């Protein structure tokens, strides 16, 4: 239809041109308008797309991920399968955890069905390759957002879903109260992570000499700490909190009041497909907004039925076409909240006070409560 319109308008403009050219040249000063009309003809193909506003042509790769995903009928989501609270396989064989629930939310947004996701367990070294090579559509695996990873590793971090930071745990009876107290001590740390590099940076800045005792996996790190082979152990605070509950005498270990790094953890998508990036990002914002509006998986139907404010109506897709602009169905936000829940529900399910992996929400609260979760307006 548009092509026909474009063709017609092109013909009309062309005929005008014919007329203009064919018209007897009135005077010498009229040469300019003729040149101007020639410029207009060049612009015709660009104006051919929508009649309303000129649109910049989409770059290569735009929309390809969504097309692939829809053809496949499921999202392939790279997760960590060995982190308590964030990703693991429960006794019934189903994936569970905070990062895993994000994948489900994305599936709910794309398909309206949170089960249409295949989880791909990945280790730290293969996660970026898996994303680059297209084996997975999105990486949701407690990955820290950093400049190098955002550029060189050809991925884009969608948005931070969990604000973490590196901490340091010592024994209470050691009397160590700050990093300076660790001078000359030994610190257990995991190799191949940003943790190890941060430790070196921070300690160099503080001028504290220490001996690192590095291990390849977190279990070995904490086993060494338990055996007393090092004076302190360092990893992200979320890790320290869940690990402390496992120690024989949790009360005898204290997490120092220092945050040695910013560890914004969040999902990541490939470079080159901004539509997919938008979908992944607005899925995160949907979770945030759900909590902000007080919409939960329990009351979502009531809220939708009784929605009056324009913002909530747009959120549910009752007004406007926000979902369509993302290339999704208009009720994508409803599906996400209905099937997965809002941010608070997702958080409490895996990391809440009723779980063994309880982590106080800290920065991971709505901006209205002093946290950093802030969703842009749904309009």
């Amino acid at each position, binding site marked *: 239809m548009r092509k026909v319109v474009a063709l017609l308008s092109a013909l009309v403009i062309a005929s005008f041109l014919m007329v203009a050219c064919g018209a007897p040249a009135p005077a010498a000063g009229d040469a300019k308008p003729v040149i101007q009309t020639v410029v207009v003809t060049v612009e015709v193909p660009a104006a051919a797309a929508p009649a309303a506003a000129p649109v910049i042509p989409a770059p290569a790769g735009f929309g390809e991920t969504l097309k*692939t995903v829809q053809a496949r009928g499921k999202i392939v989501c790279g997760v960590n*399968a*060995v*982190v*308590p*609270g964030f*990703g*693991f*396989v*429960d*006794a019934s*064989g*189903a994936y569970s955890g905070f990062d895993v629930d994000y994948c489900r939310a994305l599936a709910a947004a794309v398909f309206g069905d949170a089960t249409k996701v*295949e*989880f*791909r*367990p*990945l*280790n730290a*070294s*293969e996660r970026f*390759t*898996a994303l*680059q*090579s*297209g*084996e997975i559509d999105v990486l949701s695996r407690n990955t820290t957002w950093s400049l190098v990873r955002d550029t060189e590793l050809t991925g884009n971090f969608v948005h931070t879903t969990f604000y973490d930071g590196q901490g340091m745990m010592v024994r209470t009876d050691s009397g160590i109260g700050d990093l300076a107290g660790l001078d000359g001590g030994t610190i257990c740390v995991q190799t191949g992570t940003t943790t190890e590099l941060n430790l070196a940076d921070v300690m160099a800045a503080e001028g504290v000499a220490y001996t690192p005792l590095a291990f390849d996996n977190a*279990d070995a790190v904490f086993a060494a700490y338990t055996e007393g082979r090092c004076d302190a152990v360092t990893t992200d605070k979320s890790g320290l909190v*869940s690990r402390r*509950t*496992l120690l024989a005498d949790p009360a005898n270990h204290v997490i120092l009041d220092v945050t040695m790094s910013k560890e914004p953890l969040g999902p990541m998508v490939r470079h080159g497909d901004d539509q997919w990036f938008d979908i992944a990002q607005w899925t995160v914002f949907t979770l945030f907004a759900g909590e902000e509006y007080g919409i939960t998986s329990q009351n979502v139907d009531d809220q939708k039925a009784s929605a009056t404010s324009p913002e909530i109506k747009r959120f549910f897709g009752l007004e406007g076409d926000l979902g369509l602009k993302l290339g999704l169905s208009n009720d994508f936000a409803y599906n996400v909240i209905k099937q997965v829940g809002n941010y608070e529900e997702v958080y409490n399910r895996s990391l809440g006070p009723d*779980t*063994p*992996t309880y982590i106080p929400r800290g920065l991971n609260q709505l901006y209205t409560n002093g946290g950093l979760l802030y969703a842009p307006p749904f309009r």
Partner: protein
Amino acid sequence: MTNTRSRPVEARPDPLTWLRQNLFNNWWNSLLTVFSLWLVYALGGGISVWAFTEANWRVIPVNLRLFLVGQYPLTEIWRIWFLVALLALLTGSALAIWAASYRRIAVGFALTPLLLALLPFSLANRLWLASLTLLGLLGWFMARNANLSMRRLVMWGGVLWVPVSVLIMSGLGDENPFLPSVGTNLWGGLLLTMLLTIVGIAISFPLGVLLALGRRSDLPIIRWASVAYIELIRGVPLITLLFMAQLMLPLFLPANVSIDRVLRAQVGIILFSAAYLAENVRGGLQAIPKGQFEASYALGLSGVQTTLLIILPQALRIAIPVLVGQFIGLLKDTSLVAIVGLFDLLGIAKTVLAQPEFLGLQREVYAFISVFYWLLSYGMSYISQRLESALGLGQR
């Protein structure tokens, strides 16, 4: 193959005399005995106190399904049972045909399912296990007086069991009403470990024999190709091959082509194992005296006939101990796939350890899977010893 020589009668002293003769026959041996007893007590005591009082074994029964079949859908688990039942029938028949004089192996096979039933299975699963023993016995009695065609049937059944199993487990397509597809991302636990091992052995063995023959071939191209392959693969660790298959391969493939991850790991294991097998088989080939070739040619046998009928049977017989060692190594090498993110027995153990209600139970979980690895390894080793004595290895 019965042994006609009767064994010498052994003198059986009463236990007290035996102790004095063997453990306390001089001061030095007495000291060693006391020290060893103390060592056993010190190590074993601590372990048994932990195992019976401190350990939280609840993690095992709750996750038993994960350990055995991974995330294989519960509604489709009958396929696994069916395949195991088929295997029990075939094993019973095979034992009756080829190992009838080795009752102990047969009894061991018959008792295995019953012993497994001691694990905290549900009643239905225990009945399944018991029926495995019955099926094995059925196979035994059916094949006791087997004629040639029956033997052939059992042999081909055994050969075809592997591909049929893979086919049944993976299903016949998403729309198939009886056998819907089950993606390999859901295969895990013992099932995946056994699959990688059995398919690995089944394919790498003939490949290894071909490579060994190729390396001794008179045709330069075949010889050089075999040497190049063997030395190249033996020059890298298995984990490198697995990383290559899991990480590098996808980067070289076109965007829409993706090869199944389990298949990639399986191919890596086969390629690796074949190179080592080739050298083991070559060791057997080199032990065959030249006279065997000459005698065979003098009888008018062709080169192929000589190799298949005279040389290989003797060479493989000689190579049995190293081959079995290789297979046991292969079984344990499959645990490396846990590093590249597959849920074999070790991989599934790692994710079980991340379940919030079972945090910190490394010792229990790893002890449990170690027992499985040990049972499988020892089983293979025991059968190979029986096979060796059945073939008279080291006596002729």
